[in-house]
């Protein structure tokens, strides 16, 4: 189980992630992390992987303090939690054969003989829907979807228990995306995986995640069971995100919230960070920052959540 407590990341004067507390239970379980660009999604992924320095709070995995882990404890963590990035092209060495790339982590994490490694590479390639022969190829000889499968195989090579998936399908065509999503769903059952799935696509998150966490300018504004959040959003921002999704059989959604004119809402020190764009804003929202609190099975940070949750799903305002 992965637990973030009051996780804070600052880049210079800017707070990219502000005291976010979030739990990813043991698998099979998916938590979706959604929010606009710049909301801090990828920074959270990077903090979990220890790829950025944190400014406060903690990350614990099975009770161990990840941010202070050294030596064997750190190696065990790096095996347990693996990441898959949005663009496989940036994470695969163009000169390294697929088989070598997949075996690399395996060999780094344990004494695996060359033969045993290549046998496992073949098994992994089959597991992600590729052919054992692909091991001999170079990344550019594969399609984008195949390269993303390789990135997933490489993450699985060290037998992780949890994956951080950072927009794993947004660079892919929709038909290719559909197959990669099926693969993720199958793997989670077979391997009892948990994952934190970062996506801007709510439908993708709905397909793969039991829980959704909604970020706004570095603040967690709502978190709870997927179906409930999408059906009865309690935070006006969750509602706006849900309402903005174009759907095949419906008219285009009308813009639900004002444009992000200021673009520096993170700098708001008092009051709600969403106040300037919120269709339900009242005076109190500008004076007092809403704390994350329990409401009908989810946690939400909004003074007017009780009213908001009762609104019809499509309606942007009260």
């Amino acid at each position, binding site marked *: 189980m992965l637990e973030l407590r009051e996780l804070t990341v600052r880049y210079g004067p800017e707070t990219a992630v502000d005291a976010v507390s979030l739990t990813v239970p043991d698998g099979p379980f998916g938590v979706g992390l959604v929010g606009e660009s710049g909301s801090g999604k990828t920074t959270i992924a990077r903090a979990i992987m220890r790829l950025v320095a944190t400014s406060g709070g903690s990350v614990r995995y099975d009770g161990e303090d990840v941010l202070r882990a050294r030596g064997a404890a750190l190696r065990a963590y790096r095996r347990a939690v693996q990441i898959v990035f949005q663009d496989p092209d940036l994470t695969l060495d163009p000169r390294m054969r697929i088989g070598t790339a997949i075996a690399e982590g395996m060999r780094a994490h344990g004494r695996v003989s060359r033969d045993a490694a290549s046998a496992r590479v073949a098994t992994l390639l089959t597991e992600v829907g590729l052919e054992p022969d692909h091991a001999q190829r170079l990344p550019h000889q594969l399609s984008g979807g195949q390269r993303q499968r390789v990135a997933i195989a490489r993450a699985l090579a060290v037998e992780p228990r949890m994956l951080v998936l950072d927009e794993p399908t947004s660079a892919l*065509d929709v038909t290719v995306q559909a197959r990669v999503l099926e693969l993720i769903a199958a793997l989670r059952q077979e391997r009892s995986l948990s994952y934190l799935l970062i996506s*801007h*696509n709510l439908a993708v998150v*709905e*397909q*793969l995640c039991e829980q959704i966490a909604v970020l706004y300018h570095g603040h967690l504004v709502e978190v709870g069971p997927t179906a409930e959040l999408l059906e009865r959003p309690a935070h006006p921002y969750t509602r706006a995100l849900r309402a903005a*999704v174009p759907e095949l059989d419906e*008219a285009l959604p009308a813009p639900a919230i004002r*444009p*992000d004119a200021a673009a520096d809402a993170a700098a708001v020190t008092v009051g709600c960070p969403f106040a300037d764009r919120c269709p339900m804003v009242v005076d109190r929202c500008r004076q007092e920052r809403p704390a994350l609190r329990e409401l009908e099975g989810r946690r939400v940070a909004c003074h007017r959540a009780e009213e908001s949750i009762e609104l019809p799903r499509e309606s942007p305002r009260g």
Partner: protein
Amino acid sequence: MSLIVRELRIGFGERTVVEIDELQVGDGEIVGLVGESGSGKSVTSLALIGLARSAGAWVEGSIQLDGRELTSLDEAQWRQLRGDRIAMIFQSPVSSLNPVFRVGDLFVRALRLHGATKAEARDRAARAMREVVLSPELLRRYPHQLSGGQAQRVAIAMAVALRARVLLADEPTSALDVTVQAEILELIQRMRREEGISVLFVSHDLAVVAGLCDRVAIMQSGQIVETGPTAATLRAPTHPYTQGLVAAIPRLGGTHA
């Protein structure tokens, strides 16, 4: 203004990448051109604004704008036509605006190229900004000081200021957040309603096309494999490729993990 494409062939060297028998965008119509990466949809839109050749492609066939043949135009004639009659907006709005000029100067340069005086240009720029619901204050900013949504509005405002009648939009919202996407799509609809502009909307996103476009053309491997009124085509696609595309869209309210 109408755009009629017939027997269009586009290629690089020996390779033909686009073969379109017919594609039409009628006066005041919004037509979606849908396909996956590599389908040829972007190079097609570049050909329609006379930029495919400078990207190294050859172009054959006929492209007519209100009866005027465009494939035989030289670069000087194209420069006159671009912006003035036909304008294009791109996926990455910030990188399509020249970064070394303030937004206002970009307007002035474009408008003066089409014969406006400096004062007229400033006036028209301010009006166009208000029309796309941006503060004229933003004219003093540099492109990198705009958000993605603001930059895409600026690009549309330029087309408006130049009084372009045909807008080619190549994935204009795929780099934007969904809430911003909703604003831009509404703006394109309003431009059509109030100004009567014609739009060719190039996209991979069938759900957006379904809501925005009157007609849709589905492109696969350089060819249009299915075309028709949007709602009917997407509700009951007849080509297996279109059926596959429609089935692959992840939908809200679908199955759970």
